[in-house]
Structure formats: C-alpha cells, structure tokens
C-alpha cells in the first residue's frame, strides 16, 4: 500500500523542501544585514521582468537541463554520476574540435556536428568509469570524482600546449569561424522596431535542451531500454533474473548520461563564448545534481527545476551587482536544495507519511 498519494510525493515534498531551503536562505540574507524581501524582488526584477533577464535565465537553464537530465538518467539506473562536470569539460573539447577543424557551410549543420562531437566526448569520458564499475566493481562515485579532476588537467594541458593560437596569452582556443555562430534569442525574436533579449546569451541550444527533455522522457518511459534501465535501478537482482545484463545497462546508462552532460558545452562553448575556454562549465555539472533531485529525475521536473536554477543564477548575479550579497549565496541555496531534496529527504517525508496515514485512518 502506498503511504501517501502520488501527487504528494512528486509535488508536496519538493515544494516543502524548496520552502525550507528558501527560508534558510532568507535567514542567511538577514544575517548579512540585507532584507530578504528586497533581495527577492531584485532577483525577480533582474531575472524575469526584462527580456534580457530572461535571456540569461534561459541560457543558464539550458546548461542545467542538460546536466540535470544527465544525472537523472543515471539515477534511474541507481547510478550516481557525479562526473557531469568532467564530462561537460570534455564535451567542450568535442565542440571545439568540430567547430575549428570542419568547414561548416551553415550554422544548422555546425550545430549538429558540434552536438555529435560534444556527446561523443562526454560519453567517452563517462565510459571508462562505467566499464570499471560494471566489470571491476570500482565505486563509480569515486571514479567519476577522480575523472573530474583528470578532465580539468587534460583540458588545461590541451588548451595551453596544443589548441592555444600562437602568440595568444590566455589558455583558450582560437575564435570559432563565423559560420558556426548560433542564432541567439535576440537574432530570432527581435523585430525591426523592438529589440528583445539585448546582450543575453540565450541561443538556439535552448530548444535542443527542451528536445532532449522530450527524448529522455520517451527513452525512459516508452522504450524497452528505458524499461530495462528502470528495472535495473529498482532491483539489480530482479533485473538479472529477467535476463537484463548489469554490465550492459550500467555502460549504456552512463554513456547516455555522459553524452547529455557533454551536450551542455554546445550552449556554453558554441553558443556563448564561441571559443573553448578553461572552466567554461562553471560548476554546472554539479548543479545538475540539485536539478535532478529537485525534479525527481523526471524530465518535466528537470525542465522546471532547471528554469528555477537559471532564475537563481541570474538573480544571484543581479544581487552581487547591486547589493553586498556575494554570488556565493547561490552556492549556499544550491547546497540547501541538495540537502533537503536529497540527503534529508526522509526528514520531510516521514512526518508527511504519518500525517497522510492518520488522515486515511480517520477517513476509513
């Protein structure tokens, strides 16, 4: 028997967790000597009330959708992929190679090429920890953490020693050719009289991310492979008994996860900086964990949670600009969300379950 109705599980618990996180964040802001209400207004003003603000919010949300989906797919197979950051870094390398060395005639083809490159490199970086977990039992959380650091070193080496243009000082590749320039929201939605999304980095990759949400939903709930991934996550022994190979599912789930994390770099590297820089991921791989937990590993939940975090990121930047609250407030909020929706889930869940059980007894 279910202890509480489904809607409470997917809506009420994340909402309560979010409220708890918001409450604590408000206390933190109060302790710094700023007004939480004013801060919230400023965040809404800066992130949602102008089209440029939305342009940033959706740009960040695009990153978080990809990394959130990456973590979610692995979660369905009960694998904790903490290596999204490294996989996204390598994905950036795939984007850079595709953009720099292939003479694309049009941005749409370049987008496809760069996406393939990003997904391939991200998946490759996830493949090694996956195969080590599946075949040799190495704990995938530890190996993916290690691979984040190794990825940073690899990227550092390649940018400084190989891809850096002659004479350039900063560790970055050359600017990508003009043909690979992706249309921004400003290019797409502005008319002759009104310019929308001025200066904002949101670009066509956002729609790729939305499509990815749909594809992942179909994959997880409407295909045989998705069924196998979910059964493996529910019970490894039962899955084995049903003839599902643990090695195959672990590797495939991680390949998809790594590919999704890698795709994030299309947005940052091709859509925004238009060259590969060090630290282009800016921790988005880790935010994927918060997004996946918040979104209950469901693509639609991930979509909403990613927009929420996009809002927090853009709002946080506004706060840092206009008040004495540093950007790190967002890191704290992110930590609280992970804490309440992930680690302290039972703290929220147990009293609620008791409440619903009591209500049901009264009703009966």
């Amino acid at each position, binding site marked *: 028997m279910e202890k509480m109705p489904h809607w409470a599980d997917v809506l009420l618990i994340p909402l309560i967790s979010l409220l708890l996180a918001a409450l604590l964040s408000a206390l933190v802001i109060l302790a710094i000597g700023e007004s939480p209400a004013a801060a919230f207004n400023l965040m809404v003003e800066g992130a949602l009330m102008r089209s440029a603000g939305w342009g940033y919010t959706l740009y960040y949300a695009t990153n978080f959708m990809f990394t959130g989906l990456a973590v979610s797919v692995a979660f369905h197979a009960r694998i904790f992929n903490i290596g999204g950051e490294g996989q996204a870094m390598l994905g950036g390398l795939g984007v850079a190679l595709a953009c720099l060395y292939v003479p694309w005639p049009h941005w749409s083809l370049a987008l496809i090429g760069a996406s393939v490159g990003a997904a391939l490199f991200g998946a490759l970086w996830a493949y090694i920890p996956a195969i080590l977990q599946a075949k040799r039992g190495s704990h995938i959380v530890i190996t993916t953490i290690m691979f984040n650091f190794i990825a940073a070193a690899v990227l550092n080496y390649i940018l400084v020693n190989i891809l850096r243009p002659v004479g350039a000082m900063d560790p970055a590749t050359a600017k990508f050719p003009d043909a690979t320039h992706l249309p921004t929201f400003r290019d797409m939605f502005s008319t002759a009289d009104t310019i929308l999304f001025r200066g904002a980095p949101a670009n066509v990759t956002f729609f790729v991310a939305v499509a990815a949400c749909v594809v992942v939903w179909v994959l997880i709930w409407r295909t045989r492979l998705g069924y196998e991934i979910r059964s493996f996550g529910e019970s490894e022994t039962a899955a084995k008994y049903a003839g599902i190979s643990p090695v195959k599912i672990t590797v495939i789930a991680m390949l998809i996860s790594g590919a999704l994390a890698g795709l994030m770099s299309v947005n940052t590297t091709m859509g925004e900086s238009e060259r590969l820089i060090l630290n282009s991921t800016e921790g988005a791989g*880790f935010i994927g964990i918060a997004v996946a937990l918040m979104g209950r590993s469901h693509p639609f939940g991930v979509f909403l949670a990613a927009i929420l975090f996009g809002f927090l990121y853009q709002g946080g930047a506004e706060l840092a600009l206009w008040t004495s609250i540093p950007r790190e407030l967002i890191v704290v909020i992110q930590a609280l969300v992970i*804490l309440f929706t992930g680690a302290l889930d039972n703290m929220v869940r147990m009293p609620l379950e008791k409440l619903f059980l009591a209500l049901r007894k009264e009703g009966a």
Partner: protein
Amino acid sequence: MDFLSLFDLSVLDSTVRLAVPLLLACLAGLFSERAGIFDIGLEGKMLAAAFFSAAVAHLTGSVWLGLLAGITASLALSLLHGLASITFRGNQLISGVAINFLAAGMTVLVAQDWFHQGGRTPSLIGQGRFSPIELPLATTLKDTPGFGPVYHDLISGHSVLVYLALLMVPATWWILYRTRFGLRLRAVGENPAAVDTAGVSVVGLRYAAVMICGVLCGIAGAYLATALQAGFVKDMTAGRGFIALAALIFAKWRPWHALYATLLFGYLQAISLRPDIIESAIGFTVQIQLLDALPYILTVVILAGFVGKAIPPRAGGEPYVKER
C-alpha cells in the same frame, strides 16, 4: 642529470608540509568510512575549518582559539552529515556533496560580511599563526654531516600540528586495532547487524566515528589557514579533500598506509611546484598537469584492481535499518 635533486631536502620538507593536511583529512575519512559512513564532504569540512580558524585567530589574536573554532565549524558539518546519513538514513554521498557546497558558499559569504576583503580573511600575524617549533639540539647538530641537516631542516622546524598529525597515525592504528571501541567501529562498518545483536548501539558508534572525522578535518583545515598559509582565501582547500579521499582508497583504509599514500601525494604536489628540479633531474620536462592529475589517475588504477584490489568496508554507504 642530477637524479638526487629530486630528493633535495627542500623538496622533502615541502612534501611533509603538503602531506599533513592530506594525512589529517585521510585519517578523518578513515574513521568515518571504517564505521560505514562514506564521506565525500571532507573537502567542505576542511574549508569551513580553514575559514573559521583564520577568522577567529585574526579576531582574537590567538591561534589556539582559532583552532578550536575551526574544529567546532567542522564538527557542526559532521553533525549535519550524521543527521542526514545516520538519523534520517539519507544518501551519504548526496549529503557529502551538499556539505561541500554549503562550505564553499558560506565561507565566502561570511568572510565578505565580516572582513569585506572579497571573501578572504586579513593576513594572520604573530600569535595568530602556528609558528615552527625548533626541536632540541637542532642548531647544535646542524653541522653534523649526514644526520645534522636532515634533523635541522626536515625533522625540526615544523608547527605543532605537523607533529600532532604524525602522532595521529600510530594513535589511529592503536584505537582501531587495540581497543574495544576500535573493534566495534570496524565491525559496524562491516556488519552493523552483528554489532546490534551484541547489544551495542550502531547509531552511537557511527555518530562517534563521524565526530572524530569532524575533529580531524577541523585540525586539517586550521593547519591550512593558520600554519601552512597565513589566512583564509576563497576555495583554499583546492581539492585536497578529494586527494585525501583518493589517498584513503590508495591506502585501502589502513592507517600506516594512509601515511605512505599521503606522503606520496604530498611529494607529487611538492615537485609540481619545482619544475626546474624535475627538468634537471631527468633531463626533460614533465607536464605539470600530469603531476596534478597523477594522484587521481593512480587512484583509478588502484580502484580498478589492476594493482591490488581496494575493497571498501562492506556496509559502507548503507544506512542501517533495524529489523522489526
């Protein structure tokens, strides 16, 4: 070619200095993981301790009060980890991730609020820092050939926390393998149900282990900010918590091996600061990035079981649920 310069006294000296925070954090993780609680929040606890030790040492002028504050901050995060992973039986890995972010964000937030220096503390001076201790006869023996310089430059002249950290290795070994508490602690990481059957509290033991972990991480963080460097800067742990985690796997969760592993990783950090020495010693340049990544690569190799398999405590990461 001058191969011996790779083991120059100055390199070995910085090896010890750089290995100490790794060693303390590694032993911290050892207590926690031996009791069955995975802890990937070592980094965050060190960071919080580094900030609060530096901040309090600066405000009070006493490094000892700073150390106390650092340990307290680290303990508070340990308690949170215990609450999430023991009491509420949540996911220990996710809790660790949350703690790392909480520390990364809060330290900068509080530092900015208290000191307005862009997320750092003012530099520590005088009594605000741990000063080097000169061991007896170090200057007299300095000119003795062979032993003298080693004693003077390498063994003597560290801060008290360095000696404390080194003493913690036999102490940890003794606690784990020669006391009743240690036996129970190891048992609770392998088979908590058996410990429960024997009438010993699983929850109590695990909290004790997590608290010891907090104290050691606190000392490690305080060492970073008040002994190795003079003050806190944003993200100053720089992945040391994860290198310590790597060292713990490398050491296969054993105290003496933790010392060897952290010395090895400390050595890698020390020579990566001296590319000139590497070049003169082996005749070609080794990429710094390779040296930086080496601890992680070695750990993956060990984890993969190609060179002796690392098997973690059996009940690690599993919340204990009493059967009803």
